[in-house]
């Protein structure tokens, strides 16, 4: 009994000492520690690279007020929970989780560290200290469709999908709607490869689509393999996440890329001045600069460029919504009525193809 009392006293002293040092540290205006967790390597040429570029811009913008750290190649397995926890324990006060599959581990860690702020890309579960951010990818893919619909000669488009989850289904659907808005004869062929990043599989999918007559193929996977395939076969392709035209100058018509820096700077400033809140769901598109179209290929005729620019301006002005009705699904059933917009519930759980897409959604 006696020894346990002594032990308690020691622990109390230690705790008091610890509190004293931390409060002194707080007065010394330490830089805010901001951490980024990446699914892929920073040199993936796409998704992760764009996040890391934004991290560097954030450092350049806020200088000594912050200190950033990143951890790359963090799988969506039980490992992510440890990484988040370790980063929080190391004193990072704002953590950006840049892959959807971190959602459950983020929920667990956020409860353990209520004073740490978490930002999660593309998720749907928030918390008092978790906010979610998501680009309006559908705007970029609608415009890709507008270009593809005008440039295709075979009237067959292709789409290399990662996983048939709502945030990707929106892209195949909005691209098809964009193409149909300029060319009612187009058909869309999707292929699902069940991976975000696998150059071998992506290349195979691109070759298959081209062999089936698709001469303008977009992708929702992260490597430039399909651009290389199109360059060799003399067909068209579209980049995602980053400008990939260096992999196929003639093949890449445009692309839907992201610039995360505006959001990262804005959120970090909010944490610095104390106005950051959780439970928010932010969706930024072309207007806010989170979705950026890659430069147009000079081979696109001026008339087609004009239509593209007009539609882009209409999206920015808010007069064009890619998912405005009437929209039918691939079986011909009306899903969104004329003069209506797609409901948030449908948008968030989209799991059907619009009319014009061939095949059925893999279950």
């Amino acid at each position, binding site marked *: 009994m006696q020894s346990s009392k002594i032990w308690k006293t020691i622990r109390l002293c230690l705790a008091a000492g610890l509190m004293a040092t931390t409060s002194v540290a707080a007065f010394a205006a330490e830089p805010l520690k901001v951490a980024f967790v990446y699914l892929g390597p920073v040199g993936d040429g796409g998704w992760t690279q764009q996040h890391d570029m934004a991290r560097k811009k954030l450092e350049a913008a806020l200088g000594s007020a912050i200190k950033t750290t990143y951890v790359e190649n963090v799988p969506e*397995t039980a490992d992510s929970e440890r990484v988040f926890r370790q980063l929080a324990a190391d004193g990072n006060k704002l953590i950006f989780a840049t892959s959807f599959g971190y959602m459950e581990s983020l929920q667990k860690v956020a409860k353990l560290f209520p004073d740490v702020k978490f930002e999660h890309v593309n998720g749907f579960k928030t918390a008092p200290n978790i906010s979610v951010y998501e680009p309006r990818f559908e705007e970029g893919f609608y415009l890709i469709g507008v270009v593809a619909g005008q440039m295709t000669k075979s009237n067959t488009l292709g789409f290399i999908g990662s996983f048939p989850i709502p945030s990707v289904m929106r892209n195949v659907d909005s691209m098809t709607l964009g193409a149909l808005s300029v060319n009612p004869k187009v058909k869309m062929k999707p292929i699902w490869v069940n991976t975000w990043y696998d150059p071998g599989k992506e290349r195979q999918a691109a070759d298959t689509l081209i062999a089936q007559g698709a001469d303008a193929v977009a992708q929702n996977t992260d490597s430039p393999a399909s651009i290389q395939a199109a360059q060799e076969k003399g067909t068209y392709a579209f980049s995602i996440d980053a400008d990939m035209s260096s992999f196929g100058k003639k093949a890449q018509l445009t692309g839907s890329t992201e610039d995360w820096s505006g959001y990262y700077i804005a959120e970090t400033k909010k944490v610095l001045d104390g106005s950051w809140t959780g439970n928010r769901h932010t969706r930024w598109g072309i207007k806010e600069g989170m979705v950026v179209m890659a430069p147009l290929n000079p081979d696109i005729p001026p008339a087609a460029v004009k239509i593209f620019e007009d539609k882009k301006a209409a999206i920015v002005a808010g007069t064009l919504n890619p998912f405005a009705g009437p929209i039918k699904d691939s079986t011909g059933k009306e899903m969104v009525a004329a003069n209506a917009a797609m409901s948030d519930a449908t948008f968030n759980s989209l799991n059907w193809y619009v009319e014009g897409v061939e095949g059925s959604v893999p279950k």
Partner: protein
Amino acid sequence: MLRLERRATPSSTMSIASPLLAAAGMLVTGFLLFSALGKDPLEAFYLFFIKPLSSTYGIGELLLKTTPLLLCGLGLALGFRANVWNIGAEGQLTMGAIAGGGVALWFGDSDSSFAMPLMLLAGILGGMAWAAIPAFLRTRFNTNEILVTLMLVYIAQLMLSWLVHGPWRDPQGQNYPQSQGFGDAETMSVLINGTRVTWGIVYAVGLALIAWVFSEKTFAGFRMQVAGLAPAAAAYAGFSEKRNIWIALMLCGATAGLAGICEVAGPIGRLQQEISPGYGFAAIIVAWIGRLHPIGVVFGALLMSLLYLGGEAAQMGMGLPSAITGLFQGLLLFYLLAADLFIYFRLKRVGVVESPEPKPAIRVEGAV
């Protein structure tokens, strides 16, 4: 000119010392590498090997990551000793997770005390069933088990992907490819409070002891060793090759399947598309570092697990790239194989070759 010549009697002391030599080689190379990068090597070593162990949570994480590596490594080591080249532990792990996870989903939120034992059993049987395919094909049609086990990895992963995209998808999950979370009775209890490590590590260490007794003290274990060391002698003694293949694959299927269910019923708590960062493959290195000995595998698994955690700590603390983890694992294996080569062979200086006929190829059987 130099050539390799087989030693008459390989030193048994050296064969135990070679993992230590390999670890030393890894550290020296790491030291040079960090210095060349302009990073303080001592700080890097601290982050890599000490910091992950400096808290109870860290030790829990080490044991948590050791669990699947140890379970898979044990099964593989037993097979490798008998010359059965199963490299598909990852697939057997996945199938164990599917089978055990299926039972968990069937129980739903029930708090039945049968749930956990049945899940573990289903996990073990799932892994065994998956390993039975290459065992059958090898014993019946003499199919190469290296190819079959490897290809079955991808089939198992696609099956899991199909299940979480389709029939087992969480109806409340907004279509995302994952199952419902398991109930409390379907989740393994935590061994040390404040950590995530589960009873899985206790099973794994217990199995390592059983495997040790099995391979050293039982006749079946002896038969498998003979089959590995001297297949002709085993055949002459009338030991059935088929039985050895079946035992080797069934044991590995069982341990890998258990690893799978421990992972999904433990830290993950549901079925999802990705459940393992390649434990089944990393366990091949674990088995070799552990000298294919059950107790050695325990240490091999701890070391590999530490390398994963250390790589993360080095990224967070010093901004080193994540490739550093793979680099250290590769260095370790490289030095281990190099040390082994010199245990079995020596370099001999020979004069200019006079005879025009080519020299017979050196057989390196048993060198690794």
